């Protein structure tokens, strides 16, 4: 047991902090901090800045740009990135398809995709969820039928995040409808989003933003060489990939940043001439949240320390569950600090409502998603009850 970071890790943390706060453009980080819309170009610019410094895909194999860091280093890297409001490297590229390609792709696929994936030269999106499946991912119905050297894909995906920016999609398709278990008979295909027969429909969210999409496939022809790994083993790759999805899902750094902003804003708002931050209820509410966040951060560090073998610790479900609750609590806190100003969501020039108060409610509403996506909190409770408690 030791509290302090080793001198090497302290230096590492300092290095990360310095890089993130000086080498990633301030304008982009300001947008992230303000929960404003970040454009595709800005995402790309930020990720390329990271990649140029070897900070986009540290968890990949060294051969493909990874850094052979310890889990704790990776944790520090991610937390500092969030604290500095750096847009994180696109998860679909770096946490999902990249590691799958590195682990299960053939040499040709690795050479073809990995460098471009790390550098966001290819923007990937995920074709997993389907309208009738929900949390029951394996019941997917999109089919791929072999026809000569091609697979012909038909079906529909949904919740495809940032699909509107995507160049390529990695997609789970049913290649053997006769398989006994629904988890068998699924394969993973990758193909460009501009392949004939692919259409995309953006879905408006309740905050008025567009970040998820429906994707329709009508006789989409995909060359056989675009099959990742073995036919009918796509479910294994998906599980591998979704395990990675939970890494860093606690988002402690991001929530910490929000609480820091909340304090700042609660200083600006006055009630009967006194800063709201001095109101005992507000101070206590922030202190309580902050303490839960400390507890979560420490739990994340414990989990990180115990997941050296790279497999997700079952307790990572705790991180997802509590992490999403705290993110949501922080967004709700911000709405309550804004108070009556929180309705002025789409104010523009001519309004005196500060920017942060304008975005507070849309952000709160948007963040209802974090307890739903990436394995809903109900799924996480199922995992905890089953895997950890044996229920």
């Amino acid at each position, binding site marked *: 047991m030791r509290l302090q970071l080793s001198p090497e890790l302290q230096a590492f943390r300092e290095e990360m902090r310095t890089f993130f706060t000086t080498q990633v453009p301030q304008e982009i980080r300001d947008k992230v901090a303000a929960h404003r819309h970040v454009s595709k170009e800005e995402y790309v610019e930020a990720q390329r800045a990271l990649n140029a410094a070897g900070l986009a895909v540290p968890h990949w194999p060294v051969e493909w740009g990874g850094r052979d860091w310890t889990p704790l280093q990776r944790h520090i890297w991610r937390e500092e990135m969030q604290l500095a409001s750096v847009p994180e490297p696109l998860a679909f590229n770096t946490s999902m398809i990249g590691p799958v390609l590195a682990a299960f792709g053939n040499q040709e696929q690795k050479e073809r995709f990995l460098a471009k994936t790390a550098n966001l030269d290819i923007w990937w999106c995920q074709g997993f969820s389907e309208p009738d499946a929900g949390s029951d991912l394996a019941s997917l119905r999109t089919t791929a039928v072999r026809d000569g050297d091609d697979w012909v894909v038909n079906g529909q995906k949904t919740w495809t995040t940032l699909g509107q920016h995507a160049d390529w999609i990695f997609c789970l398709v049913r290649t053997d409808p006769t398989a006994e278990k629904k988890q068998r008979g699924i394969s993973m295909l990758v193909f460009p989003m501009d392949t004939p027969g692919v259409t995309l429909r953006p879905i408006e969210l309740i905050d008025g933003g567009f970040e998820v999409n429906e994707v329709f496939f009508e006789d989409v022809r995909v060359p056989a060489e675009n099959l990742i790994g073995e036919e009918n083993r796509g479910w294994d790759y998906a599980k591998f990939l979704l395990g990675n999805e939970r890494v860093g899902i606690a988002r402690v750094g991001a929530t910490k940043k929000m609480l820091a902003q909340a304090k700042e804003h609660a200083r600006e708002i006055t009630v009967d001439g006194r800063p709201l931050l001095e109101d005992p209820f507000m101070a206590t509410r922030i202190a309580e949240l902050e303490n839960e966040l400390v507890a979560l951060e420490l739990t994340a560090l414990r989990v990180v320390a115990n997941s050296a073998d790279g497999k997700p610790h079952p307790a990572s479900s705790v991180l997802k569950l509590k992490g999403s609750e705290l993110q949501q609590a922080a967004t709700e806190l911000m709405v309550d600090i804004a108070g009556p100003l929180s309705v002025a969501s789409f104010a523009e020039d001519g309004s*005196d409502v500060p920017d942060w108060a304008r975005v507070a409610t849309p952000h709160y*509403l948007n963040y209802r998603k974090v307890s739903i996506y990436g394995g809903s909190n109900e799924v996480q409770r199922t995992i905890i009850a089953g895997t950890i408690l044996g229920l």
Partner: protein
Amino acid sequence: MNFDFDSEQNDLREAVRGLLERAYGDSEQRRKVVANDPGFDEKTWSRLAEMGLLGLPFAEEHGGMGAGPIEVAIVAEEIGRVIAPEPFIEAVVLAGGLIAAVGTDEQKGELLAAIAEGTTVPAFAHAEIGTRWSASAAAVTATRTGEGWTLSGVKEPVPNGAHADVLVVSALLAGDGAPGGTGLFVVQGDAAGLTRTGYRTHDGTRAANVRFDGTPATLLGGSDSPTHPDQTAAIERVLAEARIAYSHEAIGAMDTALRITAEYLKTRKQFGVTLNRFQALTFRAADMYVSLELARSTALWASMVQEAGGDVVSAADRARLQSSRAGRHVGKEAIQLHGGIGVTAEYSVGHYTSRLTAIDHLLGDGGFAVARLAEHVGERETVDPLGAPYA
């Protein structure tokens, strides 16, 4: 003691429900209406006027229906049931309520009839950036001129403030020999020195920044005597009446959100069965029902307190506290139990959550209400909702 609606009240509910069901029974219709200014449907507004609802609580001699708080509650609940965007509470209960409460007979005769007819849509310009759910004004000052008054300063956010034909404005009584306090004024929409910048709020309705720069104004209710009447108490009272009405709107919205959610649980299938087979979900729906019914009881009671002439300010705080807590609970759970579809703008449930969030912050949230109640908690051994100071 009797919680039953009489047959006229039931008829009223049927009529309002019919009208609003035709307008917004299809939730897509609401999306279309709020997409364009003024954020509500002027035809529906006319129909509300034809039905007499826009003059519902005004005296018959002023063109109203002479109805009481229960009738207002019924209309507010029906509005909430389809989250109709028409500014009934803002125009009739708040702005109209203030005119009815403190206006001169002449002002009532002139303004209330026009409101009831639907030809004048008023708004109450009261919130200020530097204050928080206060009954008094500070940022807009009223100064006596030779023949009348001028206002200077900024009000924001003012619900429906850009579209309103007439503004009722609260202002600090300033200037030589002014005794201070908050006065109420009427400002015409086309007054000189009036700048209004409207915008869309997250729930689809509209609010505005309203800037006064030596804007001519008429004292509401004043004989324009040197003893400027402080209207803080009247404002507090009308705010309380609006808080009660908003609580009823919230009840209607929660009722629908719960109904939609239960329906979804009954029909949506996952893992081969409908979601209502998952006890963890149905129990949460049951808890939503508990929250809703407790809030409903309290809101109905507060309207009865208002009707009985009891302490409406305290009753309104009780109704707000209960409906705030319930609104957050029901609003969040309704989305979570839906999963992904709940956060999309294409599906209705998220709009209910958005509106519940707006209602919660317009005139004071649960934290605001409970802090006020806590100040008096030691004054009585027990609270008797059927006794003093309520009945």
